[in-house]
Structures are given as structure tokens and as C-alpha cells.
């Protein structure tokens, strides 16, 4: 299969993989003679043959919690998320890392393959060998499977995290620089060039589409001197993470990223001293600070005109404090149809603000406390559906959370588990070993289970979360 995959074909590929998952679920309940099996099977087969006509041999690969058709990574969105993660789990269960459907595949072979794959009997380290043998015995010769090598993947995961950390850090720093440049230009009334910022956002989108964990990890970075810039870059990343889950394409993610990056543009017109005031805000201070949404719109439209991107930025600027029920600010004299950008940025903005220790809010919330706080305001301050998706994106132990494990180790969550059923089993980096010593420990996946006697038992479990602030722990160091 050529690497040149047309977007249209990719969409068809996604639909087929989705159907594959539906068929597997059906096959676990009904046998092929049941009419309930026929309809999803026929659709699956029809889609497969269609794709083979265009691509020839078709291969589905599992790599680091992501599915690939040939060389093309299949992007998950709200529609396909559940089915994709189900299929990933099934492939892991059988220790299958690659399935290749050859061109001469017959219908009866395909039925046999599906039924064997759907079988619940195999478990543990022998699962793959047994499955391969069963396929041979059943005469399935036009579907080839290869083993999923978790150990290899684990090594490459550590390398990948190391590599991508550098790239993410570079992108983060550039985004920071781009925001600083724009904000400073606004302050001194210079021409506003957004192309640098756009390039940076585009590079962040590229990274996000590859692997969001490294970039999300950087949102734990706290730069107290330049809170606004730090905050806007974080909001940009968090909004794009949410946008990605909603199924936004590259262009839309880039637009959303730009809108989020400049949602606080209006603060460039407010004095730095006021924004960084070490004491509580007075009523007058609040009155001024609450003008920043309107100031943001004025600034961007005045300086850039009604370009597509400026308009989208203006939505983010105007709406991010309005609240879902419009109870926020600015107070509006009539009903308002909030844009999706505004609602997404509103969620990301609040989360980062709560988890940050900005000057006038010295005690930051832990990630889970922030999410709980926000969930309590679901439907009022936040779009309830978007908030649910956001919680799912960040996981119940968001990236940067410090956890105590039942081994006595402490770890920092580096990556959430893509499978919602295992949301409590993220990937963590061990930072304190069993003896209580600070270590530059391994990165471990908490959904790893033992074999043999310990089959079905996890190696490590989370006991509780720990507030890193209380112990002066700066978790961002594990992402830098």
C-alpha cells in the first residue's frame, strides 16, 4: 500500500475500521448463522473489498495506542473513539500488532477470521501463538497476523518521550515568544504580524496529531513572571487537545489554536502592574480586568481587519468569560449564540487558570480538584458536553498529577490511558522509589498485568493523588 493516502480514502479507511469494531462486538454475541451477524459483516466486507480495489493489500497496525492503515495514522474523534479504543484493546488482548488482508481474500475466510478474533477464550502470553495456529487450522491463509511486541514498544516509548519532549519544548518556547512579540507590539501600537504565531501553532498541531502527551505535559510549566503568556500557550494546547477529540481537522485545529493563543490579547492593553498585582483586586481593578474580552476584540479587529483568523480570534477573546449560561462577563443585554471556539476556550482557560498559581491566586488547584470544581459548574459556566469530553481527554489522573502507588513509589502521570475503561491506569514516571529515594525512574504503564500466577493482577495501582505544591515539587521538570 502506497504511503500516499488520499484524505477521502483515509475517511473510508476510518469507516471500515469503525465497522470492524462493530462487527467484532456483534461476533462476540452472535454466531455467523445469526441474521444479526449478516448485516454488519456484509458492510464490513463490502468496505474492505472497496478499499482493496484502491489500495491492494490492506494492513491494520497497532502502535502506541494508535491504529495505522498502512503508514497513515487514523485520527480518533468523538464518533470513532469508543470503537477504536475497543479494537485497540482487542488487538492487545490477542497480542496482535498487525493484520494484513490480502487481495485474494475469500468471504468464508473472512468469516472464520472474524469469529476466531472475536473469541474470548484466549488470554495471556500464549494468546498470539494460539490465535495464529487457529487461523492456520481454519484455512485462513489470506489474512496474516503479526505479534504485538509490547517490550519493543516500551523501549521506543521511552525514546519517543525523550525525543518528543525536546520538540514539544521547542514548540512551547516558540509559542511563548510569538505571544510575547504580539502582546508587546499591541502595547506599543506596532503592526500586528500573526504569521509567526500561526507557524508555531501549526507545528504544535503536527505534534499533537503525532502524540499529544509531550505537549500536554508542558502545560504544567509555570512561569510566574509572565503568567499571561504562559497561560495563553497552555490554553492553546488544552483547547487544541479538546478540538482534536472533537474531530477537528488540521486547519480547524490551527484556527482554534490561534484563537486560544490570543484569547487574552485584551490584557495587552491593561497595565502589567495591575495584572501582576500581588494583593487582592479591588472592585475598580476587577472592572478594568473584566474589560479585557472587549479590548481583545477591539485590538484584533482594529489591527487585522475582519480576516477569517482575526474573526475567530475575536470570538475566543469575547466569549471566553461569558459562561455557557451567559452569566459571566461582559454582561450582555440580549441572548447570544456562543461559538464552539468560545466554549472550548472557556473550558481550557478556566482549567489552566485554576491549576496555575498566578499572582492573585496563590494556591493552585490540583488537576483533579480543578476538574471537580468545573464539573460542579457544568451547564452553568461550561458546556456540559464539552466539559465531559475535556475530562475524558485529560483523564481522571491528568498529565502532571503526582500519584502514590501501592508499591510505595511516587510517580508523575506522563500520559493518560486512551482506553476510557482504563482511565485510572495512566502511564507514569517513577520519581520516588519504594525506599523513598528521589529517582529518575522508569516510565511505567499502570495497565500492565502479570503473567502466569499473577495473571489478571496489575503490577501497580494508584493509591491516591498527592498535591505537589505542598512539597515544593515542580512537575514540569519531568516534561522539559
Amino acid at each position, binding site marked *: 500500500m*502506497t*504511503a*500516499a493516502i*488520499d484524505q477521502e480514502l483515509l475517511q473510508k479507511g476510518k469507516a471500515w475500521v469503525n465497522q470492524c469494531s462493530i462487527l467484532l462486538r456483534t461476533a462476540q454475541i452472535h454466531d455467523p448463522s445469526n441474521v444479526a451477524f449478516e448485516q454488519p459483516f456484509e458492510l464490513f466486507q463490502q468496505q474492505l473489498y472497496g478499499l482493496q480495489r484502491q489500495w491492494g493489500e490492506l494492513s491494520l497496525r497497532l502502535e502506541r495506542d494508535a491504529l495505522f492503515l498502512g503508514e497513515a495514522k487514523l485520527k480518533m474523534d*468523538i*464518533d470513532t473513539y469508543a470503537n477504536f479504543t475497543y479494537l485497540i484493546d482487542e488487538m492487545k488482548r490477542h497480542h496482535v500488532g498487525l493484520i494484513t488482508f490480502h487481495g485474494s481474500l475469500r468471504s468464508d475466510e473472512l468469516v472464520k477470521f472474524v469469529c476466531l478474533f472475536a473469541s474470548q477464550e484466549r488470554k495471556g502470553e500464549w494468546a498470539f501463538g494460539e490465535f495464529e495456529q487457529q487461523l492456520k487450522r481454519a484455512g485462513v491463509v489470506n489474512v496474516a497476523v503479526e505479534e504485538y511486541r509490547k517490550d519493543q514498544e516500551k523501549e521506543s516509548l521511552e525514546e519517543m518521550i525523550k525525543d518528543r519532549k525536546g520538540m514539544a519544548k521547542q514548540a512551547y*518556547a*516558540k509559542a*511563548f*515568544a510569538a505571544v*510575547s512579540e504580539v502582546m508587546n507590539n499591541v502595547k506599543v501600537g506596532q503592526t500586528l504580524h500573526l*504569521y*509567526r504565531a500561526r507557524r508555531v501553532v501549526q507545528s504544535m498541531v503536527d505534534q499533537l496529531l503525532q502524540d499529544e502527551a509531550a505537549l500536554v505535559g508542558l502545560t504544567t*510549566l509555570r*512561569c510566574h513572571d509572565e503568567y499571561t503568556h504562559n497561560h495563553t500557550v497552555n490554553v492553546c494546547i488544552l483547547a487544541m487537545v479538546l478540538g482534536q477529540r472533537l*474531530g477537528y481537522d*488540521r*486547519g480547524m485545529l*490551527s484556527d482554534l489554536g490561534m484563537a486560544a493563543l490570543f484569547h487574552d490579547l485584551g490584557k495587552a492593553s491593561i497595565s502589567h502592574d495591575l495584572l501582576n498585582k500581588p494583593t487582592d483586586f479591588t472592585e475598580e481593578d476587577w472592572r478594568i480586568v473584566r474589560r479585557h474580552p*472587549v479590548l481583545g*476584540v*477591539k485590538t484584533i*479587529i*482594529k489591527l487585522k*481587519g*475582519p*480576516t*477569517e*483568523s*482575526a*474573526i475567530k480570534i475575536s470570538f475566543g477573546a469575547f466569549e471566553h468569560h461569558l459562561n455557557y449560561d451567559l452569566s459571566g462577563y*461582559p*454582561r450582555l*443585554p440580549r441572548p*447570544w449564540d456562543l461559538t*464552539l*471556539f468560545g466554549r472550548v476556550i472557556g473550558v481550557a482557560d478556566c482549567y489552566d487558570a485554576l491549576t496555575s498559581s498566578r499572582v492573585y491566586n496563590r494556591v493552585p488547584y490540583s488537576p*483533579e480538584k480543578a476538574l471537580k470544581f468545573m464539573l460542579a459548574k457544568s451547564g452553568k459556566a461550561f458546556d456540559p*458536553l464539552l466539559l*465531559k*469530553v475535556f*475530562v*475524558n481527554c485529560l483523564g*481522571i489522573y491528568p498529565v502532571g498529577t503526582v500519584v*502514590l502507588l*501501592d508499591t*510505595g513509589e*511516587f510517580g508523575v502521570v506522563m500520559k493518560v490511558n486512551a482506553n476510557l475503561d482504563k482511565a*485510572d491506569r495512566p502511564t507514569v514516571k517513577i520519581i*520516588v522509589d519504594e525506599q523513598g529515594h528521589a529517582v529518575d525512574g522508569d516510565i511505567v504503564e499502570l495497565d500492565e498485568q502479570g503473567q502466569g500466577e499473577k495473571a489478571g*493482577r496489575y503490577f501497580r*495501582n494508584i*493509591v*491516591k493523588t*498527592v498535591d505537589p505544591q505542598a*512539597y*515544593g515539587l*515542580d512537575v*514540569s521538570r519531568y516534561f*522539559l
Partner: protein
Amino acid sequence: MDTRPPLQPDPDVDSQKLKAARELLLQFVKTAKTVRLYLANNPVHQKFLTDLFERFDLYLRAYGALRLKIKQQAFLVDGQMIYENESRQDNLAFRCYVDGISELAFHEGLTQRELVEFLDIMGSEQDPALADDDLVSLLWKRDFPHISAVVVDDLPDAGILPEAAQPKEEKLEELVKRETAAVELAAVAGPKRPEMPLTVYKLTDEEIGRLKEQLAKEQQRDAVAQLLDMLGVMLEIEEDPVSFGELLDIMGNLIGLFIERGDLAKAASCAEAASRLCDHSAKNAPAFQGRVREFLLRLGAPESLQALTVAFNRLKSIEVDQLTRYLQLLPPDAIAPMTELLGTLNSLQARKAVCDVLAQTARDKIELVAGRLRDDRWYIVRNLIYVMGRIGGPKAADYLAPLVRHSEPRVRKELVKTLDAMEASNTVELLLDLLRDRDGGVRVMALRALGRRKSARAVAPLTAMIEERQFREKALSEKLEVFAALAASGQAESMAVLARYLRGGSWWRRAEREQLRWCAAYALKQMGTPEALALLEEGSQGRNRSVQEACLAALRGTARDLMLKQARS
């Protein structure tokens, strides 16, 4: 270990490669121009694309990826220039250069579809005020599998982020001591799951459906309309007059931009949002109202309306309704510059729309239009007469009176038409004045208008006209019009005059008398009242043969034709 000498580049291969690259680029440039000239279904368009793709395919198979280094006006391959263009127009290298692309590469496996889309992007001419996607962004969005671009990176990335602090030993000790308790650890050992701080939310199908609906709705959203709505709301809630004024300035700039683009609907929406503030209770203070007035004045300023004309004449797509909608929002101060539009707008429908708006806006400021009736350009005066007519009333007729003597007959014709449609009583005098116009067409129009007016005041002047010596010189058709006007007045006096001409007899100037008889008979038939018809019946049965003939012809409806036939012979 490989002891062979390192491979030296083969000069023949290199020169062949460069030659092939040059030819390929040449073909690329030609194709880029051709696809812009011809529609996609045109065979020439398709042939060029197929040829280019085949050349690319051959090149990539023979030499591998084509890497083009980009200079300001040139493309280089392996350090050798293979394309140069000193002009900045239509220069592919320059287009890439200004957007910060330092290298473009085409890789093996390139598909024809990619090539077509790449050409589309290179050939796209975007309005910089509307779309802010540069070449880099367009290429990035498309994410070609076999075309890559290297972009100049001029943003610093080092030394900006703070270094994270190392954890302190004593703090870690405290962490371990306080947070780890054997009891807790034991409690979660095994497969049992600990209590989770949060719950994950598996979205239901219904929720996924709702989200998808929202995503689809977002795609349909008219972003510009929403922006204007947002600015409108911001104006409403703004409490600071200075900031309010700044917002109006932004609105003003947007209107200018929309007009330039020919988007009068958007310009009108902006203006509407601002003009609504005139009636807004929260904006009653003079500081706000003054600014709104200034804003609307600026919209109606000559230079603003000049820009409107330029856009309207340039773009055929602008709807006249939107022009009307926009002009209706302008204050009376804009009347004078608006009248200028009548001289500059090419479209007749557009000028008609301006007239209609002027009639509405100047209803209480008629003097502002009247002041422009002395304009040297007859075509503007003609349109303004129409406007005055639409406003109507005796005052309008008074302002129109001097135009009875206007040098241009088309103006006077418009005047008659307008006076005809006006109900004011003083218009009859003006129509009577126009009976003496030097242009026959104007006189006939005035006669017909007078006829429709059914005014007793017309009888005496018309009768006097018939009696005048000059009447004899008039064409028969005009004479008939005069009699018809007399008849149409429907007055008893008219009847008496017509009866006199019908019966009148004299040996002196007999032919003339006969013609007047026939005209009177014709007019009586036109009059159509029982009395008039009775008179004709009576005449048709009388002894006087010539009266009899005229009455019979009139009653049969052939009098006019017979007279005209006779006059021609």
C-alpha cells in the same frame, strides 16, 4: 571494509539531471499559466496537467526527489540555477520566497491529484484583507504526502522558558513520611480498584449526535455576521464614550472594507447596528449621540459614497436591494453627496434606487434636493425631478417651476411626467406653460397630462390655443391632441366649445373649418358622455352633409384615421 575509492559524481548524469530539472520547471511554469487560463474540463487544461505529471514521474524515477532551493527570484537544484524570473509578477520563486519558504521538494510517489492541488494553491490569488492564509499555511493545511516545504524559522526558542526547580531532599522526605501509610498501601493491593477522584464520561449516542450537530452548525455559521453582531452588542454595553467612539471607528473601517469588496449587505448590517443606537435608551447621553451622529455623517461623506460608486460600477454582483438598504441608513446630511451618485453610478436600476432613497430621506428636507436642481448635468436634474415628484406637494411643484424653461427637452419631458403624477393643484399652471414648449413631444405629453387632470382651468387656454393663428400651422396629430385634451377635461364649457366647432360653418377658410369640425367630432366621441354622443347622433342625422359625415365617422370610430389618411394624401 570497503576499500574502493569514494564514488565521484558523474558529470554526465549531473548535467542530464539539471537539464531535466530545467525542462520540468519550464513545463511547470507553462502549466501553471495554462490552468489559470482554461477551465478544468478544457482538453488543453487537461493535456498540460497530464504532460506535467508524466514529466514529474519520469524525473522522480530517474533522479529521485526534486529539491528546489528557493532564492528571491530563482529556483536552484544542486546549487545550479534552473529557473530565474526577474519580474515579481507571476514569479513562482518569489511567491515562495516572500512567504518564507526556503526549499520545496517533490518526492517519488507524487500523484497527479497532489500536483493539481499544488498548482491550485500556487495559482490562488487571495484577497489579503479577507483570508490570511499564506502559501505556507495553505501547503500545511493540505499536508501533501509527497510535497514538502522547508520554512525559514525566525523565532527564538532558547532561554525563554524557566528551568524547573530540583526537588528538595527534605521536602521529599516529608512527602514520603506524610503520604505513605502502610494501611493505605495494603488496602489497594490486588486487583481491586482504588476509589477514583473523578469519573470518566462515556458519551451516549445521543450526546455524540448532539455534538456532531453542533460541529455541523459551526461550519455553517456566518462568522462575519456574528462579528458584526458582536460589535453591535459591544457598542450597546460600552459605558465609556471614548471607547464607544473607538468602536464606531472600527465599525466605520469595516464598512469601508465591505464596500470596497462590494459586500453591501455586511456594510448595511454595520451601519444598522450603529444607527440602532440612536434610539437606544442607554445611549441617550449627548456624548454617545454625538458620536453616533458623527459616525453616520462619515458614512454619508462624499468620499465614502464615491467608494460605493467605484465598487458598484466594478462589481456586477452587488444587489440593488442592498444598495437601497445601505443608503436608507444615511442621514439627511448625505443628500447632497447622494445626488452625486446619480451622476456616477452606471446602472440604471441603481440610480433608480438612489432616487427612491432620496425621495424618502428628503421628505422633510426637500430644499436639499431642490438646491441641486440647478446642476449643470441634465441627467442629474432629470433624476432629481423624479425625486421631487416622489416627494410631491405644492412646495415641490414650486421648486420645479423654473425647469419649465430648462434647455434640455429630456429634462422637460421628465418634468411633464412628474407633474402628471403629482396631485398638487399648482402643477396645472406648469403643464399649461408647457403647452407652449418648443418641443412637440413635450407639448403632446403636457396635453395628455392636462387631459388626465380634468381641470376646468385648462378649457379657456386650450380654446384660446385653437383660436390662435399658430394653431393652423400645427400638425394634425397635435391638433387632435389639443381637442382630446379639451374633451378629456369633461367640463360643460368644453362641450359647448366642441359643439360650436362641430356645427360651425363658413365659406371662408372652409378646409380649415372642416378639419376643426372633424377634430371636434373626434373629441366628442372621446368625451363619450351621453350628451356628447347625443350631439353626434343628432349631427349624423342632420341636413348639413359635412356635419353628418364628421359625426358618422366619429361614431364609427374612424374619424381620426380618416383625417390622418387624408392629411397624408
